[in-house]
């Protein structure tokens, strides 16, 4: 073969196709549940597998090709109505989604993938049980010149529409040759409101040289007059599709003589009334194709982002020089002009930065679709009926973050189903609906995205959490006595915490919640939990929109400048020494009725400092990681900056509490605080909020 395409193209492309397949299956399932059919989704599922087969063939991905080939046959049978679509059929198809995912992962790593033989047998089994033969629906009055150009599938859909008692219409449209893409898209949407578009028949003799005429076959429950009226604005005419009895079907040969009066619609009834055909007023547009996407390696975007970061630094440096110029009072006009232009430049840099960030954004729907599949599977495994409501799937987040979210969300959903949602009988006894409900919500709040997973299950029982923590020796009774209810609930995020392994005590959560917390923290996210016994639990994840560039709070302490990621900053406040109390040797303040442990950055990094008492006031920056909060004590706040994260040199990599470095104007290198590490340290091993001070001497 003269073509060699890189294997790295295959996996992402195939993954996209499998995701499309999975989405279509979910649509099919939804249609089935509401007692209907969705031929469009079924056909799209077939096409997805058809593409996957083609892809796998080109890249010699053997098992994927074998499986998609067998699925293609099954789906072809389904879409042609030869095989019935039952919930059991969908189970097999959903299993294929999982298997493809595993096969693709194996292909990427060069491993042997899972065994596909059992699944192949089940797929073949789908074809083995053919639908009881339906009497073929007659297609009276439809001309062979139309039937002759329909694919088997289109003909099947035509018959189905007749069987369902729909009227068949021929919608005649004329398009400007250059604008056909746009015109068709607009018309398609309108037509679908009225029924099913079976095919588009192009006619070779258009009304003018630069136009193209189409006859569109539409199956609809609506009256012709209604459809005609609604589409009048589109410049189309609508006709019933019946045979012109005066014209016998003509035999066609491979080469039809050119002199033959040709009109695709010519053999069909009803000449179009003069003046019937209006121009479709689509504007002339470019010749480019409809699909206008490019695939870009994220590393290239990172590189662009870095370059913009450098540009920002240059900008800040020039700003510094301009300021110097202004101070000297030399050429005040020029200095003013320069600072004006610098402001413009700063705006442009910000726009540039935003534009690159926008490129990295993908909708959360990608992950939510996967979760819908998980809910379906786990619900069935657990014998629980579960309704999943998804909202905000169009909310966008950085591609990297979306990728990292699948696992934590999966764990959370699993917990909802395993522990949160009660059994059917338990629910009925509690006066709840038999089906459990899980709401998956995403929305933007300021510069962050919030994802909430809410169930209407049994909620968390504080006593059981306490008992479990005691039994596992995670905490002592004394520790527990001092904890607030919220702190107790947050124990579920501790490593090793689970109530699951205790027979007969299935309530409560715990499976993998520490993993969830770790993953969310790594994304600079916060996780909160709210629960009410008997009513359910809500987990809220708050995430930054991107990680590549961060907004940072610039602070100063003991003459040193640090950056704190604004993502983890909850609030900052001014405190006087009298606000600070000492509890068991650790400094704390009371904030919103809760005790907040403090951590002095200067002491933490062993910076030479005047005694703190000499300062009348300190600033406390409240930072949070997952559900924990601590207050960082600093001397001064210098403002907010957008910073591009750079990795540290070897010397600093060992310093705990430092996440990286960045540059501010004037080529100053500033260290970026690793909030996660500081909070982890403050929280300590036993999960209680011990003070950082305790580990750094008195």
């Amino acid at each position: 073969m003269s073509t060699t395409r890189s294997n790295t193209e295959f996996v992402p492309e195939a993954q996209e196709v499998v995701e499309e397949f999975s989405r279509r299956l979910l649509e099919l399932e939804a249609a089935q549940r509401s007692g209907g059919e969705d031929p469009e989704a079924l056909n799209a599922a077939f096409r997805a597998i058809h593409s996957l087969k083609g892809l796998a063939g080109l890249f010699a991905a053997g098992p994927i090709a074998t499986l998609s080939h067998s699925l293609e046959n099954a789906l072809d049978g389904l879409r042609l109505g030869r095989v019935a679509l039952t919930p059991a059929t969908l189970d097999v198809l959903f299993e294929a989604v999982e298997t493809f995912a595993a096969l693709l992962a194996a292909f990427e790593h060069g491993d042997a993938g899972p065994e596909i033989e059992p699944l192949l047998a089940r797929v073949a089994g789908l074809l083995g049980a053919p639908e009881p033969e339906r009497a073929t629906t007659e297609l009276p009055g439809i001309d062979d010149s139309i039937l002759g150009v329909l694919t088997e599938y289109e003909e099947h859909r035509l018959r189905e529409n007749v069987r369902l008692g729909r009227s068949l219409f021929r919608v005649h449209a004329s398009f400007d040759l250059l604008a056909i893409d746009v015109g068709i898209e607009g018309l398609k949407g309108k037509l679908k409101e009225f029924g099913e578009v079976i095919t588009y028949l192009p006619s070779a003799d258009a009304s003018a040289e630069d136009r193209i005429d189409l006859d569109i076959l539409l199956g609809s429950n609506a009256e012709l007059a209604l459809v005609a009226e609604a589409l009048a604005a589109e410049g189309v005419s609508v006709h019933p599709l019946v045979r012109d009895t005066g014209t016998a079907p003509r035999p066609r040969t491979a080469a039809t003589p050119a002199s033959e009066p040709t009109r695709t619609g010519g053999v069909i009834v009803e000449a179009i009334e003069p003046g019937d055909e209006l121009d479709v007023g689509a504007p002339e547009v470019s010749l480019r194709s409809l699909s206008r996407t490019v695939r870009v390696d994220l590393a290239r975007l990172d590189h662009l982002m870095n370059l913009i970061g450098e540009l920002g630094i240059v900008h800040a440096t020039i700003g510094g020089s301009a300021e110097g110029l202004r101070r000297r009072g030399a050429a005040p006009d020029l200095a003013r002009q320069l600072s004006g232009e610098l402001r413009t430049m700063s705006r442009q840099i910000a726009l540039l930065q935003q534009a690159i960030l926008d490129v990295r954004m993908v909708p959360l729907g990608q992950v939510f679709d996967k979760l819908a599949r998980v809910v379906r599977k786990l619900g069935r495994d657990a014998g629980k009926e579960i309704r999943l409501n998804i909202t905000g799937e169009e909310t966008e987040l950085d591609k990297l973050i979306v990728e990292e979210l699948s696992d934590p969300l999966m764990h959370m959903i699993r917990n909802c189903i395993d522990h949160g949602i009660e059994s059917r009988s338990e629910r009925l006894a509690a006066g709840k609906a038999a089906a459990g409900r899980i709401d998956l919500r995403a929305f933007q709040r300021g510069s962050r995205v919030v994802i909430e997973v809410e169930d209407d299950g049994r909620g968390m029982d504080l006593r059981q959490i306490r008992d479990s923590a005691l039994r596992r020796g995670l905490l002592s009774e004394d520790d527990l006595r001092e904890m607030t209810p919220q702190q107790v609930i947050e124990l579920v995020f501790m490593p090793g915490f689970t109530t699951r392994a205790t027979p007969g005590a299935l309530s409560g959560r715990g499976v993998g919640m520490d993993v969830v917390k770790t993953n969310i923290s790594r994304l600079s996210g916060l996780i909160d939990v709210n629960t009410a016994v008997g009513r359910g639990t809500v987990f809220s994840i708050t995430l930054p929109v991107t990680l590549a560039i961060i907004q940072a709070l610039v602070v100063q302490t003991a003459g040193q400048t640090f950056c704190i990621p604004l993502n983890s900053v909850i609030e900052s406040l001014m405190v006087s020494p009298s606000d600070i109390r000492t509890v068991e040797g650790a400094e704390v303040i009371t904030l919103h009725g809760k005790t907040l442990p403090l951590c002095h950055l200067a002491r933490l990094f062993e910076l030479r400092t005047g005694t703190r008492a000499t300062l009348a006031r300190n600033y406390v920056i409240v930072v949070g990681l997952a559900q924990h909060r601590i207050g960082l004590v600093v001397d001064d706040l210098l403002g907010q900056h957008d910073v591009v994260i750079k990795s540290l040199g070897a010397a600093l990599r060992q310093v705990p509490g430092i996440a990286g470095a960045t540059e501010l104007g004037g080529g100053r290198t500033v260290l970026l605080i690793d909030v996660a590490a500081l909070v982890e340290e403050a929280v300590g091993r036993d999960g209680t909020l011990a003070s950082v001070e305790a580990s750094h001497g008195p």
Partner: protein
Amino acid sequence: MSVRVLLVEDSRAMRAYVSAILEAHEFEVEEAENGFEALRMLPREHFDVVVADVNMPDVNGIELTRFVRRGPRQAEIAVLVISTDAAAHDVERAMTAGANGFLPKPFTEQQLLEAIANARSRVQASA
């Protein structure tokens, strides 16, 4: 002058594969990812060969074949349809509508080149 091919195929991977083969053999290839794009290009540009997938959504390969056969240069353009073996019904209709050849997927480089050569010789013989 090199032979101009219009390739109509909705699978991106398949388009890339066919184009790569044909371009390596000095064909000039234009790609259309659906029937509408093909309809837009056919009346305005000169093509010697149309290679079309039979089973495409919206405007299918059979309809496209008939469109070519009823167009002004209908006798000069060779139409080769490609499809999976399973779609025998559709292929038969495409041949009736005026296609000059059929190539089942998957196919090798050699098979594609031969199929195009055969389709072209059929057109030239009937011209």
